[in-house]
């Protein structure tokens, strides 16, 4: 609207640019879960067709519908992180690792951990492995009719997957670890922040009770790499009128802001046992009384690290290469923690390596 051409065009363009920038910044900040679900639908996130084949509590086991005659017999079970929603692996059409695996003829299954409720206040990390992951793996084996599965674990989900493979090596044919930390002692800024003297984990768990709010867990992530955060906003402002760019930004921003609470006992385990005591590397993690030692994993592993990972540095991920009992193929992607599966064109190489390894 510019009645009589009173307002100069460049001023109008600047106002339009600023308004669009503000809209993009704010659309996720105060969104309710229903609004965020609507935004996911409008942006076409999580597009690959799937069916819920098993559910328990907030968890759903999803089986993605094949798009071609199945070529590979061994099904793949994807174990995502507990901190974020799984659909970063199925972000948008042609930006989806899951879509790629389905198109390559893999029988692809994913555990959607869902949104934890108050009843999750009794679940430790070993419960996620020994109960939920075990049950899901059993369902995959029974419904696919295969005695063994391949497992792909991402981030903290990869830690759960490693523990499962250590306790049940007879069930795992191959493993893919996608930016999975193993050595937490020198695991970057997060390791500094979660040290015993800096992070009162007992007070945190005692205050919040059964669930640690998602806002609390995610509060500091943008400060892990301040330069990258500032560059992101600058790049957004520069490209704010580019529809493709803003659509991609909105997709990732929607996922980043889709915060879910964390079961308090599992959160305590993550901070105390993994970060503060480094039990996974030391072979001191247990699943319902059974030791979960990395040396007990005998299957071949593809270990993917990210060179510019500000969440889990490369050295925290590459430690698996010397610890696993079976052969490890290592690839360091020239990307960040999440961009190894979403950034073009680097994600194509990640997808190619995963599907080639699993074949």
């Amino acid at each position, binding site marked *: 609207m510019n009645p009589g051409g009173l307002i100069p065009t460049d001023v109008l363009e600047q106002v339009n640019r600023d308004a669009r920038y503000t809209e993009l910044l704010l659309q996720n900040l105060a969104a309710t879960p229903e609004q965020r679900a609507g935004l996911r639908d409008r942006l076409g996130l999580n597009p690959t067709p799937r069916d819920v084949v098993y559910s328990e509590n907030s968890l759903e086991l999803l089986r993605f519908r094949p798009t071609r005659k199945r070529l590979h017999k061994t099904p793949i079970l994807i174990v995502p992180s507990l901190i974020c929603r799984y659909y970063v692996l199925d972000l948008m059409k042609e930006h989806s690792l899951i879509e790629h695996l389905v198109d390559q003829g893999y029988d692809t299954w994913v555990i959607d951990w869902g949104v934890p409720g108050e009843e999750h206040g009794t679940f430790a990390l070993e419960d996620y492995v020994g109960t939920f992951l075990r049950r899901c793996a059993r369902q995959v084996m029974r419904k696919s009719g295969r005695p063994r599965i391949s497992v792909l674990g991402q981030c903290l989900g990869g830690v759960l997957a490693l523990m499962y493979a250590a306790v049940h090596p007879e069930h795992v044919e191959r493993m893919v670890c996608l930016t999975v930390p193993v050595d937490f002692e020198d695991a970057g800024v997060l390791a500094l922040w979660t040290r015993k003297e800096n992070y009162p984990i007992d007070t945190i768990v005692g205050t919040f009770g059964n669930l640690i709010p998602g806002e609390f867990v995610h509060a500091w992530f943008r*400060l892990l790499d301040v330069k990258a955060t500032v560059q992101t906003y600058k790049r957004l402002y520069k490209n704010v009128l580019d529809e493709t760019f803003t659509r991609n930004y909105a997709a990732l921003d929607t996922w980043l802001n889709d915060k879910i609470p964390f079961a308090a006992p599992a959160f305590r385990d993550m901070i105390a046992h993994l970060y503060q005591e480094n039990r996974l590397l030391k072979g001191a993690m247990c699943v319902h009384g059974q030791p979960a030692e990395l040396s007990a994993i005998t299957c071949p592993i593809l270990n993917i690290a990210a060179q510019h990972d500000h969440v889990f540095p490369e050295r925290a991920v590459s430690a698996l290469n010397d610890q696993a009992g079976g052969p490890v193929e290592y690839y360091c992607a020239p990307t960040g923690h999440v961009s190894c599966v979403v950034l073009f064109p680097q994600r194509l190489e990640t997808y190619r390596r995963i599907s080639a390894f699993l074949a």
Partner: protein
Amino acid sequence: MDPQLTSQMQKQMETMFVQGMDQMMRNAQALQHFGTTLKSGLEGKQMADNAMKQYLEMMNLPTRDDVARILTYLQKIESRLIDLEEKVEDLADRVKPAEPVRKTATRKAPRK
């Protein structure tokens, strides 16, 4: 003001801000101070939560813990049912179905 000079000043301020924040996020003393502040804030929240809990109990209204307790019981029941289902499936796998008895055809001797 000269736009080039403004741009240079902006870049310098941005660099200083980024470097300052990065250093602070890695400074042991600063992190310890954050931890102490966080702990104090959480203890304050704990007091407020306890006061609310006492008020709800006084009003004979369910507290968050009451709701959590019920949900935990329900979750345990669900988990036991799933365990039972798995045991039944394992038992069913072990029991082999009995083979059907085949009747052999007999020929009666022809009547003379």
